[in-house]
């Protein structure tokens, strides 16, 4: 019978240890008191001696962090383990039987649930090997992602249930109302998904489990079923349910699925034990297709391709219904809230962009050479805004209950459009930055945004927002302020317009700018003056330099 060796208590304040070097290998015969491995705690490292003679089965690998009491390894005292079928070996094979035990244990995670039924026919001590494996399951919970975030939605799993995952490998994407982020694996092992994609979970909820040190990747999702196959009484049973061979395509089915580009794991096999028959493969469709068809309303058009040619001239009338992402729902909720809860209005002006364009044309190469970053419009606008904000502090302020909070610094939020929606990373202390620093910071933040790598921290705490609808061609807009901020500057498209300069009509590149503001704390005079100040600074950038 196997003896479980557990992490011993090593001191009052020590809750976990790290497995250091193993001095013995899996399957080695060890003697009592022989040192098996080293364990490291945050206070000291110590040796871990064998509690008995026998064959060693390692459950925790080097580098694994284990809580006190967790099982590190087992020692098979009589070397027979769960010898369910060992005697089955032919008379000519006396030797292989004990050797076969070693691999059986190596595959511990795959074994963990099947070991129990497999061992059932044998003597009582046999189920023990099942326990070390289950003791190695790590529960992964939804991490705390920011003060105000209370729940997250699972956007997509990048791993499948039963997959082998490595430490720090990304398992899934989580969306909160502020950002999306990736959930890395806390340990290597077999992934057991608890919450499916689309589920909304509170912070701290269990999202998945990892069976540590898993070895056998195949068909681990249904390990319980095949084991009874070896038992005569249960023999007919596995035929109905999934077995180790579930989703295994026949040779012809495999070819058909490959040509259709369908993963066999997505096909329900109708064959014995869930095997995929040729017919299954022929009728299989890509996973995306059946989804809309499964909904009651669109089912009709989807199910009636034959009569369609008669009305083919009318085009499709298929509707799609998709659940809003958590991020999208939050954006929607907040935008309405801001409209309802603030006294928002917008003032406009126009900026002659010629001076900036001239400056850019003149210095863009030198700027790029010197700073390794392009000289864009955003640095001019950000810089102009920070100067204007300091002149009109109310625009940089926010309401908190009955108080007005003035900010002596300018943390400028920059709206970035991503595939998932709008995000607003913040340039901190923009007022102290030079043009190159601003450009670099914008590029860095926009890159993080597009890769979904922005953290909540990087998006919180802005005091004023700049949004540039012009890059999509917008001529004029009334942006909604980014609460709890009090104002937002909208940039727009640059178009050539006839304007009068010194009594002459000339063609100039003009941008309309808009400032939406919360009239509760910003008066019309301040808002209009702020925008005029921004206009002045942009039309004569020398003023930025001189601060006048």
């Amino acid at each position, binding site marked *: 019978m196997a003896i479980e060796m557990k992490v011993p208590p090593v001191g009052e304040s020590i809750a976990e240890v790290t497995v250091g070097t193993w001095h013995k290998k899996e399957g080695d015969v060890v003697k009592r008191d022989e040192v098996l491995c080293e364990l490291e705690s945050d206070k000291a490292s110590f040796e871990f001696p064998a509690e008995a003679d026998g064959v060693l089965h390692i459950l925790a690998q080097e580098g694994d962090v284990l809580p006190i009491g967790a099982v590190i390894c087992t020692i098979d005292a009589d070397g027979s383990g769960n010898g369910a079928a060992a005697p*089955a070996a032919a008379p000519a094979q006396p030797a292989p039987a004990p050797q076969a035990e070693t691999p059986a244990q190596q595959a511990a995670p795959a074994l963990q649930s099947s070991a129990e039924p497999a061992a059932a026919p044998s003597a009582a001590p046999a189920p023990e090997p099942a326990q070390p494996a289950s003791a190695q399951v790590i529960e992964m919970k939804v991490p705390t992602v920011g003060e105000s975030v209370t729940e997250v939605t699972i956007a997509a799993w990048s791993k499948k249930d039963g997959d082998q995952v490595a430490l720090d490998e990304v398992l899934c994407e989580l969306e909160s109302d502020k950002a999306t982020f990736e959930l890395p694996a806390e340990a290597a092992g077999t992934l057991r998904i608890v919450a499916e994609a689309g589920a909304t979970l509170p912070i701290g909820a269990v999202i998945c489990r990892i069976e540590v040190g898993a070895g056998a990747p195949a068909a681990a999702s249904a390990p319980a079923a095949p084991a009874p196959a070896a038992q005569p009484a249960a023999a007919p049973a596995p035929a109905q349910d999934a*077995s*180790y061979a579930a989703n295994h395509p026949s040779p012809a089915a495999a070819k058909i699925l490959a040509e259709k580009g369908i993963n066999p794991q997505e096909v329900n096999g109708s064959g014995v034990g869930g095997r995929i028959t040729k017919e299954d493969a022929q009728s299989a469709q890509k996973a995306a297709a059946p989804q809309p068809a499964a909904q009651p309303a669109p089912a009709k058009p989807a199910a009636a391709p034959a009569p369609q040619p008669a009305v083919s001239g009318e085009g499709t009338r298929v509707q799609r219904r998709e659940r809003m992402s958590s991020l999208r729902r939050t954006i929607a909720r907040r935008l309405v809230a801001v409209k309802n809860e603030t006294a928002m209005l917008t003032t406009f002006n126009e900026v002659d962009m010629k001076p900036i364009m001239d400056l850019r044309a003149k210095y863009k190469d030198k700027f790029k050479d010197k700073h390794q970053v392009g000289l864009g419009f955003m640095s001019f606008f950000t810089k102009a805004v920070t100067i204007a904000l300091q002149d009109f502090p109310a625009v940089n302020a926010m309401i908190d209950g009955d108080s007005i909070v003035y900010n002596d610094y300018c943390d400028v939020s920059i709206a970035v459009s991503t595939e998932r929606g709008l995000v607003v990373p913040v340039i901190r202390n923009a007022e102290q930055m030079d043009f190159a620093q601003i450009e670099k910071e914008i590029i860095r933040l926009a890159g993080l945004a597009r890769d979904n790598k922005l953290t909540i921290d990087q998006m919180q705490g802005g005091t004023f927002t700049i949004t540039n609808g012009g890059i999509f061609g917008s001529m004029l807009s009334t942006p909604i302020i980014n609460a709890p901020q009090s104002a937002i500057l909208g940039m727009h498209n640059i178009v050539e317009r006839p304007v009068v300069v010194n009594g002459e009509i000339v063609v100039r590149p003009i941008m309309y700018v808009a400032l939406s503001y919360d009239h509760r704390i910003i008066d019309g005079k301040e808002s209009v003056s702020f925008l005029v100040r921004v206009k002045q600074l942009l039309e004569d950038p020398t003023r930025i330099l001189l601060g006048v």
Partner: protein
Amino acid sequence: MQYDVIVIGSGPGGYVAAIRCAQLGLKTAIVEKYKTLGGTCLNVGCIPSKALLDSSEHFYNAAHTFEEHGIKLADLQVDLPQMIKRKQGVVDANVQGVSFLMKKNKIDVHQGFGSFADANTLNVKKEDGSTEQITAKNFIIATGSKPSSFPSMPIDKKRIITSTEALTLQEVPKHLIVIGAGVIGAELGSVYARIGAKVSFVEFADSMIPTMDKTMGKELQRAVKKLGADFYFSHKVTSVENTGEGVVVKADTPKGEQITLEGDYCLVSVGRRPYTDGLNLEAAGLAADNRGRIEVDNHLRTSVPHIYAIGDVIRGAMLAHKAEEEGVFAAETIAGQKPHINYRLIPGVVYTWPEVASVGYTEEELKTEGKAYKVGSFPYRALGRARASMDLDGLVKVLADKQTDEILGVHIIGARAADMIAEAVVAMEYRASAEDVARMSHAHPTYTEAMKEACLAATENRAIHM
């Protein structure tokens, strides 16, 4: 002439590839340097050796078992020239069959030596010295392999011979020394042992057919020993010399001592090497690796995407049926399909008597990979059918996953093993468990009952007839 596909080499890989291409509507040509189609397998490999194996087996049975069957023969003799002639008849019929298949499928046959002019053009040098240029969008290289040897074994094709010459000997050797006890050595060695030659196997490894499951090698050795063969395992041949009247083979024993064997023929069967000589791969932008093989990806594509290679010129076992599967695979890939090959489930067969056949993992591989497995085996001796035919040697050995009971490997030595292995392949392609096979009806009396019984043994050690 512009083709969709040109297949170079008409062995079992090449001609099958050509037929599949034609079936898929591709304009196809095949280029063969020999006068007859069919390559090694049909001309100097599988088919002629099997013809001689059958002939020699008949003789052996007539000499040793007929009497017990109640058949008395007097003055039994081997007419080796006739035996060789019949073998040639079999070969000719098969080769003509392939020619017919080419015509039927409208495949152009270009007789001559193919070599690349560039990645889309092949020069075909004909027997009359003229050269024809043909071009294609795709190529399948299926030029096969040649017997290999070592410098210590200078093949003169007279006394020191390869499998090719062993198929056309005009006299029964008195003492045939076979270097290498792998598949080819075991087969041809047993041919001559049956018709009266003294056969000595000198093998570098420690058993016969060393790449197969150890149990098979052990059992085969026992059977071949009954033919009077001697075995020198773990021996390293240091020199082979043709003395005019015979051969002298010197080898080092495992202890480092030298032994000398004298015989009249020495069959060198130490493996085969990929054959790409003269193909001018460089002109097509290709190169062979250090073992002479052409590198291909999982789609059998070479580094030049429209040139494929199959069979013995690429990695994997040098087996006719492996080449055939790859021929179909390459053809279907060219036609835009996505075929599959499960290399793990290509059976290996040795046509000795008893035959040896296996598929899947060997027990040694399962140990190395650390898989938990169980073994079920069943001896032919316990079969009614085997008793009736006096084919008592052999056993079926089934290796199954310890937890799931999935069959992982099947190894058979015994009568009709080569045919019986197909059941194992089918079962394993569907990932059947040992119990699945054990619960299927097997006709009685047949040899395949041994398969069922071995699966029962693997399931829960509940073979019925043991």
